[in-house]
């Protein structure tokens, strides 16, 4: 008997007197009070992110250029994914064609990307490695991550957030910069992931 067949046989034996499976109740809150992109949600997202030590700016299509310049202040090389919208492109952009080594990525000052969705309740941003976000390594190795969130991408609840993400793609859920609670259970920001997370909420 292979290990697979044996483990499955053990499970079936163990379940020979199975409990009745019941359909799980889903009467918890699945949708929030506010529609995606509502001003209340943008406000809440800002508060939640700030609470976990991310920096948040808001921008309009007109002010985006100068807001991004502020967010990228002091950087010399900024890696960007291949599908970043042209109008967001900083002068110092290094476009990732998939060939940048990890050592190269370790020398750039920042990364600038879009996202696929965000949840206000928890202050969470989701990346799904689409062309405007890039492969996972580029948002991981640089020490500063500047992420543009479009207002329409902001939902309220975690269940709503999951409906906007495709579980067959590589997903990264980000809620604030890298942190640890491993020393005396006190939260300290900044360990291995980007130590600075700057979120630009774009009201377009």
């Amino acid at each position, binding site marked *: *008997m292979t*290990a*697979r067949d*044996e*483990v*499955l*046989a*053990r*499970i*079936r*034996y*163990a379940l020979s007197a199975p*409990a*009745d*499976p*019941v359909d*799980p*109740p*889903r*009467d*918890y*809150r699945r949708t929030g009070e506010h529609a995606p992109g509502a001003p209340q949600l943008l406000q809440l997202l800002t508060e*939640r992110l700030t609470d*976990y030590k991310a920096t948040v700016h808001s921008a309009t299509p007109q002010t985006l250029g100068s807001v991004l310049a502020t967010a990228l202040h002091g950087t010399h090389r900024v890696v960007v994914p291949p599908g970043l919208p042209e109008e967001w492109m900083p002068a110092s952009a290094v476009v990732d064609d998939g060939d940048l080594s*990890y*050592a190269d990525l*370790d020398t750039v000052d920042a990364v600038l990307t879009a996202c696929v969705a965000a949840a206000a309740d928890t*202050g969470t941003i989701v990346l799904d*490695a689409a062309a405007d976000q890039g492969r*996972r*390594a580029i948002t*991981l*190795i640089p020490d500063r991550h500047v992420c543009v969130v479009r207002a329409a991408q902001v939902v309220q609840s*975690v*269940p709503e957030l*999951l409906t906007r993400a495709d*579980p*067959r*793609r*590589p*997903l*990264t*859920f*980000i*809620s604030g910069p*890298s*942190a*640890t*609670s*491993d*020393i*005396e*259970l*006190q*939260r*300290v920001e*900044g*360990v*291995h*992931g980007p130590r600075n997370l700057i979120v630009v909420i774009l009201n377009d």
Partner: protein
Amino acid sequence: MSKVFVGMPAHAPAGVGALHASESFPAAARTALADTQLRRNLGAATTTIRAKREAVVGELADWEQLRLAGQAIKAATMARLDEHLIRLEEEVTKRGGVVHWARDAAEANRIVTGLIQATGADEVIKVKSMVTQEIGLNEALAEAGIAAWETDLAELIVQLGHDKPSHILVPAIHRNRAEIREIFLREMPGVEASLADEPQELAMAARAHLRRKFLTAKVAVSGANFAIAETGTLVVVESEGNGRMCLTLPDTLITVMGIEKVIPSWTDLEVFLQLLPRSSTGERMNPYTSMWAGITEGDGPQEFHLVLLDNGRTAVLADEVGREALHCIRCSACLNVCPVYERTGGHAYGSVYPGPIGAVLTPLLTGVLENPSLPYASTLCGACFDACPVRIDIPSILVHLRARSTEQTRKPPSAEAIAMTLASWVMSSPRLFGWAGRAMRAGRLLARRGRIRRLPPPLSAWTAARDAPSPPRQTFRQWWRHRDGGTP
């Protein structure tokens, strides 16, 4: 102990891994209780985390509905565990992953060692995985000449301190900042003597120490918090970014996962992603959660192996009362509220799974004869059930296991003595605790849907002694909250 027949659920074998205690709970606890530094560290840490957890749980008006949903999803999953695992295997395979099955710790270790050897690597980076501690993977790899680097800060502290984990979430919870600084100075090459004992500086020292490893490692070994059957998606919940590093940068990723971690659908995850972070670190959401399904060209590891581990889990499933312990999502909330854990710490439990969940899960995995004193490592106060995000009825399972150990060993008196000793530690400071906890417990257990018909020892002893207590003036939780304020 018992003979194993092909196809019969089997307990986790002794001799490998970290489930079999070398000394009994009361003996180990006595040592721990004498360590005042340990008790101070634990007291400070658990007080912090209880307050954080209560605050973020209080933000959700639907917390109880989420708990009920979590409990029901887990129960429904276990009822069809074979089907969900087969679906998971199909989906992972379809997306370019390779699925392996392991009956026990030794088989899992052999599989992982072979996979690493096939890549030619002689070192791996690891992201916190209780299951690889359970099976003693690092020791097995060391024997094969493969170095395993723990990358989680707390794991690193434990590894560098040549120590053992003592908490599910924060394995180095028994260490305070000054002790951690000492360990880093002693064990981390290149650390300056000027290193301060500030959490921020200590975290930065760990960052510098592991950076090169992350950027050059060829193979990573991880655990998994959840695996979604219908999509083949693996989920790792973490804080520091070491998980992202391990899951993204190496060429080969090997994930070891207990068979109970599977959940049926993507929608189910919406429940656990709300329950887990609030219960474990007391955050609305943990900083990072990574998910992947098989292999993605041009992004992340191009070789992915998933090892599905039994190691006693089918024996737990076969126990109709105990099987609920398989619902555990390893949040550690039950540890943080447990008055026994707070006094003894995690090492006393002698297993990688400490605290209330460890007191049931460990003997269920190994068979109760292998860990006969663990079901007595509790006062049955019920705080663990109240805190558990998936409503595992730990007190009832403890009582069930006590009955079983009494049946099997026919030595109830010594066991009773253990439990009474434990109760006296807890009751020794405010006596009110004992009365409130005791009365509540007896009521709870009697009221439970007829699963427990008689009260086995030591409850029989306790109920016999219940001639004079006045009714509790406050519930356990009120008392506990009050106590955190420093005035019992």
